[in-house]
Structure formats: structure tokens, C-alpha cells
């Protein structure tokens, strides 16, 4: 297949856009429906990525890919899920500030561990030796296929979220997020519900971390800063936290516009490409977040419309 139009930069850019859409969709379940603000997205994502990377590289596996990859990846997803369960257990009954600080603190712990546990992670030097679980002809073809697989995974996440909106489970999340005491008085276990959505979301974030690790094939602790959380949160808030399409619209307009359109097609000074652009990106994202919260706090798509949804599902 002719892949000349697809350069390495575009692959990474598209991968990053779809990955952040996936993270924002998972965040939408937690923050948009169940109203648990998770500011530790990068922690779950990074834990998945590093558990996978360390196991893949440091363990003397008796077999090769795809089993070596599958088992390491599964361990990454499970570790992220278990961390979500534990963090969720600690924060589920806290107020919003407590939840924000608790999740942010968790992400910081993951970053510090990845930096200091050099025997396992190689710390700031970075962990190399990762590979795609398949070998097509050249690197570009491998990367293009991996991007395609990621798009399928994100589409499946979106399909799941779409179904959640149309299911009793989605209603439970919205109810627990909206009025926890009332939901409890109707016999709904609010704490367990929040723990569940936090665990499932964290596991999903871990999976996306594993997939990013495979694409990069080199794990750097610099990825574990707040940038990724900020990208997912800003994308979600810009699009609309409560809407299924919120993450897609929001991330396309923020990460998509900045990482692909501006960086690829706007002639920015060459000297900016080292330090300046990432800082500029965070400044722009921060400013967009403030602007949206001031002028359109429910995001571009606005609040959820259960009345329309119910009519479309059950008539009248």
C-alpha cells in the first residue's frame, strides 16, 4: 500500500488525537456522567504503559510475541484498573477538591516512581527495547497499522459509551452523579457504582497507555507530566463533558487543531520546535479552558438532553 502521504509526524499526531479522544471518552463516563473529576488521567495511562514496558523488556520471557506482548499489555491494563480501584476507594466519598487533589497526587506518585525506580524503568534515561507485536515490512507500515488498531479501539470505546447512554447503567451513573443521597434512598449503591466507573475508566486509560508505549517503543518519564491530563480535560470540557460527542468535538478542536493543523501547516519559527511549542500548547489549552468555563461552562455541545434521548428510544 502506498503510504507516501502519511509521514511519521502525521502518524504520531493522529495517534495522539485519537488516543486523547479515547481518554476523554473514558473521562466523560467518570466526569460527565458520574461527576467524579479525575485529574490523574496521566497516572493511570502512565502506569499501564510502564507496567507493560517494564514487563516486556525486563522479564526473561520463555516465549516471544505475540504472547509476550499480550501478557505484558494485559498486566498493564490490570495494574491500571487495580490502581483505579484503590484510588477510587480513597477518593469516592471526598468532595470535589479532595477528588481533584487525590487523583492529581496519584499521577504525581506514578511520575516519581517511574523517575526514581531506575533499576526497572531506567528513569529519565528512558526505557527502550519495545517492539510492535507484529512485523510488517518497514517501520512506517507497522506504525500505520498500529494507528489503525488504535482507531478501532477508540471506536469501540465510543460505541460502549454510546450504549451506556442508552442503558440503565448510564442512568445509574447520571443519577449517582446528580443526587447521590436520593439514589441511595432508592437502593442504589453509590459508592460501589463510583468505584466501578473509576476502575473501568482507569483500566481503559491503562490500555491506551500500553498502546502509546508500543507506538513510541521508548518510554520517557517526560510523558508523565500534566500535559496529557490537561489535553483530555480541556478537550472534554471544550466539547461538553456531558455529551457523547463532546470528547470528539473538543479534542479535535484543541489537540487536533494544535498538534496537527498548527504544528504541521502554520510556518512557525524553527527555533520554537524544541522548548517553546509544548509550553505554548499548554498556555493555549489553559486559556481555552478558562474561556470556555467563563463563557460556555457546559461546553460547545451543551448539557445532555435526556428528554430527546428518551423520546428517541421510547417514542412520544
Amino acid at each position, binding site marked *: 500500500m502506498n503510504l507516501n502521504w502519511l509521514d511519521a509526524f502525521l502518524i504520531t499526531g493522529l495517534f495522539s488525537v485519537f488516543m486523547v479522544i479515547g481518554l476523554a471518552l473514558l473521562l466523560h463516563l467518570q466526569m460527565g456522567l458520574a461527576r467524579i473529576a479525575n485529574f490523574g488521567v496521566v497516572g493511570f495511562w502512565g502506569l499501564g504503559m510502564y507496567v507493560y514496558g517494564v514487563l516486556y523488556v525486563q522479564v526473561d520471557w520463555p516465549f516471544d510475541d505475540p504472547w509476550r506482548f499480550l501478557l505484558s499489555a494485559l498486566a498493564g491494563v490490570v495494574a491500571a484498573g487495580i490502581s483505579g480501584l484503590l484510588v477510587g476507594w480513597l477518593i469516592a466519598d471526598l468532595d470535589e477538591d479532595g477528588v481533584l487533589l487525590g487523583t492529581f497526587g496519584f499521577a504525581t506518585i506514578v511520575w516519581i516512581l517511574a523517575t526514581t525506580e531506575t533499576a526497572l524503568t531506567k528513569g529519565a534515561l528512558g526505557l527502550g527495547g519495545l517492539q510492535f507485536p507484529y512485523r510488517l515490512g518497514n517501520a512506517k507500515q507497522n506504525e500505520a497499522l498500529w494507528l489503525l488498531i488504535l482507531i478501532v479501539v477508540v471506536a469501540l470505546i465510543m460505541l460502549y459509551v454510546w450504549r451506556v447512554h442508552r442503558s440503565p447503567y448510564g*442512568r*445509574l451513573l*447520571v443519577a449517582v452523579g446528580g443526587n447521590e443521597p436520593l439514589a*441511595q434512598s432508592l*437502593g442504589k449503591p453509590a459508592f460501589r457504582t463510583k468505584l466501578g466507573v473509576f476502575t473501568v475508566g482507569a483500566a481503559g486509560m491503562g490500555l491506551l497507555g500500553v498502546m502509546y508505549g508500543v507506538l513510541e517503543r521508548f518510554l520517557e518519564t517526560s510523558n508523565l507530566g500534566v500535559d496529557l491530563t490537561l489535553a483530555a480535560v480541556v478537550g472534554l470540557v471544550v466539547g461538553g463533558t456531558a455529551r457523547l460527542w463532546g470528547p470528539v468535538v473538543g479534542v479535535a478542536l484543541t489537540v487536533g487543531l494544535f498538534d496537527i493543523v498548527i504544528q504541521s501547516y502554520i510556518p512557525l519559527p524553527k527555533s520554537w520546535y524544541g522548548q517553546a511549542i509544548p509550553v505554548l500548547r499548554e498556555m493555549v489549552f489553559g486559556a481555552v479552558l478558562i474561556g470556555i468555563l467563563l463563557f460556555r461552562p457546559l461546553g460547545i455541545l451543551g448539557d445532555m438532553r435526556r428528554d430527546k434521548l428518551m423520546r428517541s428510544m421510547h417514542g412520544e
Partner: protein
Amino acid sequence: MSDLQNSAPAARPEIRVEGAVKSFSGRVVVDVDELVLGDQPIEGLIGPNGAGKTTLMRMIMHSTPLDRGRISMHPDGPGGEEIVLSDLPTFAMAGRGLVKSNQVIMDFDRLTIWDSLLFAVAGARCERPYRVFAEHDLFDAHEDEIRGYLAYFGFTDPMGFAQSAGEKKLLDIVRCLLLKPRFLMLDEPTAGLPDELTEKVMDKIRELAAAGTAVVIVEHDLNVIWSLCDQVHFMAEGSVILRGTSEEIRAHKTVVEKYLGEGHV
């Protein structure tokens, strides 16, 4: 209605409150030595503002924890199985047949009326994260029952959101009824409702009680209490100080002094 009344009522459940104390900031709000609820089909709990009625109900639901004491329920009447309510989390009450409506208006701001009612009837099994195709089964199983309530109370736009305070109050009651309670506690169920709807709510309560549900009502509209209740508990300063029939309570000197006033008829 006739079906429910013709079915033989099961033994009525009973709630026992023993030595239950609750203080806020050092002030004792509830101190009930011994109280049995559920002796009669419909019981009233009255008393002046600040008497501790709502707090006592919240203590029974364990949404307000007790400082000390014990609250238990016998779902099959005295002598049957005992459930210690004060050891259970709030969400476990509905599953055991104990349901309470809310004094202040409580609603889910992003759920429509239909949503809210389907939410009330949905069992834990269909609300699991992987049951993302369960909506139509749930709807089909409960459509007739919910439509029955919606038609009976006449909601304006059931696919939309509850519009008025009255609709939200009614919605709260219908959610409770859909849970098919064995023991129902209603905290000011008719506050803010027009007379016609108050009558409809009262009829539903009578119907439920006739079918074997124990009902306890806290209400300031004393006409509701006198016309509905087989037994009335009078509460003042955190304690239940009197118990009797409507006639006995409304004529009692203490109740007249502390609550009704001399001019009450």
C-alpha cells in the same frame, strides 16, 4: 385497586427503635427510649417544628447515623426475622422493603420523569456496566405499571423533566411506590400539592396499607393525619411522648398545649 385489596395481607412489618439518641453540636435532637412503628396499617408522626421527626426518620433509614441505640425491622411482623437497620448502609434499605420519601424536594436534575421512574424500578442486575443492551427489557417489563401511575397522577410531559415543585414531589412519591415497599415512610408527602392530588396520594396510601404495607406519615397538614391514620405518635423535644388514636391525640391536653393550640377543632 380491587386486586390489591382482595389479596390476603401478609403479616405487617414492624420497626423497633430502642434507646436511639442523636445530637448535633451537643444538642440532643432525638432521644427515643422505645418506639414501635407498624402496629397499625397507617400511623402518623406529628409534633411541632424541631421535635425531631425528620431526624428520627433519617435515623431509621441510617442516612443519619445514631450516636447510640438500635433500630431494627421485623419484615414479617413481631417474632419473625430481625434486620438491624442501624447496622446497614442506607442503600440496603430499599432492597429490604423499607422506603422513605423526602421532606424537601429531591430530584435528579438531568433525568426526565420516565428516566427517574425507570431508575427506581431497575434492579442491580440490569445496571451492571456490561449490561448496555438492557434498556428495552427494563422498559417492556415496567411500561404498563409506570404508565398507570403517570395517567393516575397526570404528569404534564412524562418524557420531559418534572416542571413544578408539585410534580417533583409527586415523582418522589411515585418512585417510592414503584419500589413496592413493605414499610413506607412518608415525610410530608402532600406539602405543596393541590387538594385534588393530595386526595389521590391519600387514596394510594390507603390502597397500599390495605394490601399489607405498613405506612408511617409525618405531616403538618393535620387533616391528612386525622383522616388517614389508625394511630398517631406525638413527638416533642426529641422524644415520642404520646401514642393513641387520632381522636385521643387531638383531644389530649399536652398536644393541645404544645402543638395544636387552644382554638384547634
